């Protein structure tokens, strides 16, 4: 079981202090809901975990290893995956290549020339992943930009799950989805939990958060102001923390 530990994480953009010393710990097999107002700093905090943003202060460890100064590629290799709010897909590249972006399997061409991207393997494995997730797309060979928002969302999820992740961060994964797809994402999260994966789910839909997460963390103006067990709280309490009406 892997554990993510954040202590005293701070981040500012110019004069704007976005994270004010965040402490948080998430373990394998746990699904943590991260909620908070627009601009509370949720996405920023998650990007600090994946390394897309560097932090100003504080320490981030994963499996006991200090990852504070590792680049995003290294953190991905350690099993930290994120589905970004803006999806971070490459629209002109095909579905399969998007899923394997940054992780292209290679072989030797004619047994000689190195670094040949094994496109047939990419296609086969991408198709398997798509089938496993039950995604409906016309073909894995079409550019991602030609898919619907919901389809793109599932491609981003497929990319995060293809490489045996230990921690999966989902930033608003259900925002663009229809009811049936939301259901399947929530089922997926439950399946990941049972496999011992640690999950952080960011969502404004408290129904989804309460359905999927055993623990709910509230971020307000860059501070963790509440860390609640689902079974010991209710929606109105969480809402009052989010809007700052509590205590």
């Amino acid at each position: 079981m892997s554990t993510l530990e954040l202590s005293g994480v701070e981040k500012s953009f110019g004069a704007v202090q976005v994270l004010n010393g965040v402490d948080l710990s998430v373990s394998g097999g746990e699904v943590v809901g991260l909620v908070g107002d627009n601009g509370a700093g949720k996405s920023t905090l998650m990007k600090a975990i994946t390394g897309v943003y560097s932090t100003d202060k504080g320490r981030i460890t994963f499996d006991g290893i200090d990852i504070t100064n590792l680049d995003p590629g290294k953190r991905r290799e350690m099993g930290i995956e994120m589905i970004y709010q803006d999806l971070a897909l490459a629209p002109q590249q095909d579905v399969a290549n998007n899923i394997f972006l940054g992780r292209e399997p290679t072989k030797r061409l004619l047994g000689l020339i190195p670094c040949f991207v094994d496109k047939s393997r990419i296609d086969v494995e991408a198709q398997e992943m798509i089938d496993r997730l039950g995604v409906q797309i016309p073909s894995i060979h079409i550019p991602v930009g030609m898919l619907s928002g919901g389809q793109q969302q599932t491609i981003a999820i497929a990319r995060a799950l293809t490489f045996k992740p230990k921690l999966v961060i989902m930033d608003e994964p259900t925002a663009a989805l229809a009811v049936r797809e939301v259901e399947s994402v929530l089922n997926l999260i439950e399946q990941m939990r049972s496999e011992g994966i640690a999950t952080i789910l960011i969502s404004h839909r408290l129904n989804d958060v309460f359905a999927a997460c055993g623990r709910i963390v509230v971020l307000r103006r860059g501070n963790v102001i509440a860390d609640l067990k689902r079974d010991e709280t209710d929606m109105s309490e969480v809402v009052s923390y989010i809007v700052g009406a509590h205590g």
Partner: protein
Amino acid sequence: MRVESLAVLFGLVVIMTILSPVTGDGVRVFLTTSNLFNIILASATFGVLAIGATFVISSAGIDLSLGSVLGLASVSGAALVVTLGWPWYFAILGSLAAGAAAGAVNGFIITRGRVPAFIVTLGMLGIARGLALIISNGRGIYGLPDEILFLGQARPWGVPTPVFILLIVALVSHYILAHTPFGHHTLALGDNENSARATGINVRRQRMMLYTISGLMAGIAGLIFTARVNTGDPTAGLNYELLAITAAIIGGTNLFGGRGSILGTMIGALIMGVLQNGLNLMAVQAYYQQMAIGAVLIAAVWLDQLRTRGRSAQ
């Protein structure tokens, strides 16, 4: 796009054949073997340059310094061998090193200083040309050894050496862009930089390498130029960035990044070669030729814009 480019190339060949003057024995000058060789030979120089343009443009970058760096590379190689009297292979090493170094400087300032590529390479356009003129005292450096002349003037198996060089460079480049992780990352980077960063691609290193490759291509093109005319010429490659970028764009490289093919660029380079050669045969003045090439560049991007807009409106 590649099919369309081929169609354009074919159409252009037909037009140029029809408009071409006729020799004494009733043959169209445009279609004579020696003229076709001329086209390929001329295309070889800016074809290599266009490959450099393809790498940077498909990553959503731009290199306006290609032509000037070609000139810098040309005099650098020649100066080492002719002026300083070093062994012949220093003409090769000097040209390639000068090109790659200029490209690396571009890449360094673009990635570290966060200065737009457009500005950095425009500045380098001035710097490299000035440096070429300083190194050569503003005059051509004549008289290279036979080993170097072989690279520009020999015809092993009847084919000019520059054409072999272009083919090898194009083959390797095609492999890199279409079939290696580096190529996949280049296109993804041009498509959506956030996507590249999020998937762990080292965006800074990738860009740095792309501009260095672009400079290296200008170095190779400079070497070919030197060898062809037996001169390290400080004015070599003047306005060639226009040809190179146009060749890449009409070959199907997306000016805004995310799409690019070396094969397409080679077709694009041939189109530019045929256009130039045909206009030459028709005795169209160089001034008008410049205008024609500029117009082709704008038209190619315009058409591509219309097409992509049409696609997203569907």
